[in-house]
């Protein structure tokens, strides 16, 4: 261990900053590099932390340990060729990633997915949201020290949803299912019944999980008032998704853009009051209930019909020169794709707007003045996946 007298002041002042506590007069500071191999950083993420005792006085995230050059590879391959790569962005939520990309290219080329495909997209996306949120809560509790049990329960439910994905798309995680103007294959026989069984069973699990966790004294002590993110800072720093809504901002792209057919479903947007870790946890629990409501309506209403836009071309797909930005509410936040076409078979510019990365902008602000142990759960509550942070 080495102590160092680092400069406490940031080199220059960002636009907005939470007030930081001054270091103890004359005290030594300890510099710790957490990661890239660290059991609590959810992958290969690194935080360079400067500590005054146990309090964090400076925290700099270091990125790039999983920078797999997705954008560069996509600019050298065809439009459809990038679809399997989108699976590997946020590898918990391959289907929502597919949807965001398909949506963007549909905007770029003027395609429209048929009714049934839109319903399938909503069903698979909400199932994805369920399994993402349930795993996130499992990991968050694991970070808090509830070793094993909650995560085991979470993965048990996740497996039921992955079985659905596997029977639909052929893969557990990397589904590669959506296409420009529709979906790849239709639902197999009996799939909807199986899905509705999973959906019906889920509330029982949520209730059990809730009884196990939500009222827990340790959870409350560890999370309430920890890692508070003020509303103004959240907006200014482009935070999106459950983290933004936990700070009380009513902004859900499913409601704002009404992409796909989300205007047909009745669902509520849960909002937090305090913007602390507990709110971010509760928002996810409540969102799961809303996802279940959407799923019940979608499974009830799904019409028969084609699943591909007849105008869509799979081979030799060359959109006209132009550009499009499409975005969806992925379980992590606003997932956007920005594509510039120059009329050739591969895009001139292909950009992923990663919610996980941008939500990390405020990690330091939330951690300053907190203890090291808190930084772990604050990071856990942001819900990052390194495949998307570094791409």
């Amino acid at each position: 261990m080495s102590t160092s007298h680092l400069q406490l002041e940031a080199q220059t002042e960002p636009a907005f900053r939470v007030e930081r506590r001054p270091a103890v007069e004359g005290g030594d500071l300890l510099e710790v590099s957490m990661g890239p191999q660290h059991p609590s950083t959810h992958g290969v993420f690194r935080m360079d932390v400067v500590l005054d005792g146990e309090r964090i006085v400076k925290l700099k995230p270091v990125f790039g340990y999983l920078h797999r050059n997705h954008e560069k590879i996509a600019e050298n391959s065809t439009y459809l060729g990038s679809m399997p790569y989108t699976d590997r962005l946020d590898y918990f939520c391959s289907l929502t990633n597919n949807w965001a990309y398909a949506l963007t290219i549909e905007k770029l080329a003027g395609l429209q997915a048929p009714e049934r495909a839109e319903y399938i997209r909503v069903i698979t996306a909400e199932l994805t949201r369920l399994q993402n949120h349930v795993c996130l809560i499992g990991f968050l509790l694991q970070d808090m020290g509830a070793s094993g049990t909650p995560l085991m329960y979470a993965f048990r439910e996740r497996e039921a949803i992955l079985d659905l994905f596997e029977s639909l798309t052929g893969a557990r995680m990397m589904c590669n299912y959506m296409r420009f103007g529709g979906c790849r294959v239709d639902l197999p026989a009996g799939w909807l019944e199986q899905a509705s069984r999973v959906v019906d069973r889920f509330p029982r699990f949520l209730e059990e999980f809730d009884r196990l966790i939500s009222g827990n004294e340790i959870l409350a002590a560890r999370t309430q008032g920890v890692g508070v993110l003020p509303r103004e800072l959240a907006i200014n720093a482009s935070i999106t998704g459950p983290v933004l809504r936990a700070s009380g901002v009513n902004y859900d792209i499913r409601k704002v853009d009404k992409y796909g057919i989300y205007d047909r479903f009745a669902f509520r947007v849960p909002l937090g009051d305090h913007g602390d870790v507990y709110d971010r946890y509760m928002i996810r629990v409540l969102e799961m209930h809303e996802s279940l409501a959407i799923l019940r309506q979608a499974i009830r209403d799904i019409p028969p019909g084609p699943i591909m836009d007849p105008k869509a071309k799979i081979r030799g797909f060359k959109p006209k020169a132009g550009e499009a930005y499409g975005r969806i509410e992925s379980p992590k936040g606003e997932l956007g794709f920005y594509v510039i076409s120059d009329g050739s078979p591969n895009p001139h510019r292909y950009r992923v707007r990663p919610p996980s990365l941008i939500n990390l902008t405020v990690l330091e602000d939330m951690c300053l003045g907190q203890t090291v142990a808190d930084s772990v759960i604050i990071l856990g509550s942001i819900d990052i996946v390194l495949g998307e942070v570094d791409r």
Partner: protein
Amino acid sequence: MEPLEQLIARINSTFPGSEVSLMPNDAPSSQTSLLVSRKDGRRVAEFFKSDSLLRMDFLSNLTGVDWPDTVTKQKIKTKRNVDGVEKEIEETVETRKPGFLEVVYHLYSMELQHGPLIFRMRTENRVDGVHLPSLTPVWRGAELQEREVFDLYGVRFEGHPDLRRLLMWETFEDHPMRKDYVEPDDYEFEPTAHDEVLTKAKAYDSCAVALRT
């Protein structure tokens, strides 16, 4: 949201002498954008954020685009006097358009729930004139994204609080998302070699020649 033409007029009346123009977009997405000059970037951005009709409080996406130098060849027929006889000569004229780096911003309003408002700024060239004003002081959300653009494209954002490489290591020297970036030659050929991979393979090993058959 108001039409972009009207918005340009409003910007011009607020900041006389500012250079803002409309960029067409032929795609069915019809997301047209504004091209803002470097010198006006900062104040126009602040105008977008504070104007009561726009209230663009949310910088959703910020990204770089590389436009390399383009050379267009055009054949022009000219009449010229050669040895006293007038002849029609075909000449190839090369027009060289210098490249530039471009940064595109997608803005939304959380307060008024509208958007996107897209604007872009361009650097002078791709070599030494790669400076643009940083918008991190306006929207904190630009912080990491500007660092990424600096890392991968080499755009220098003036006024950024902490402009370091985001993804690659600090001693790395290239800007890999540029179109003319040459990647390190570090992967061997595959058994199903063809096209470029085959050329690469042949350079490694004479055995690879057998692959053609």
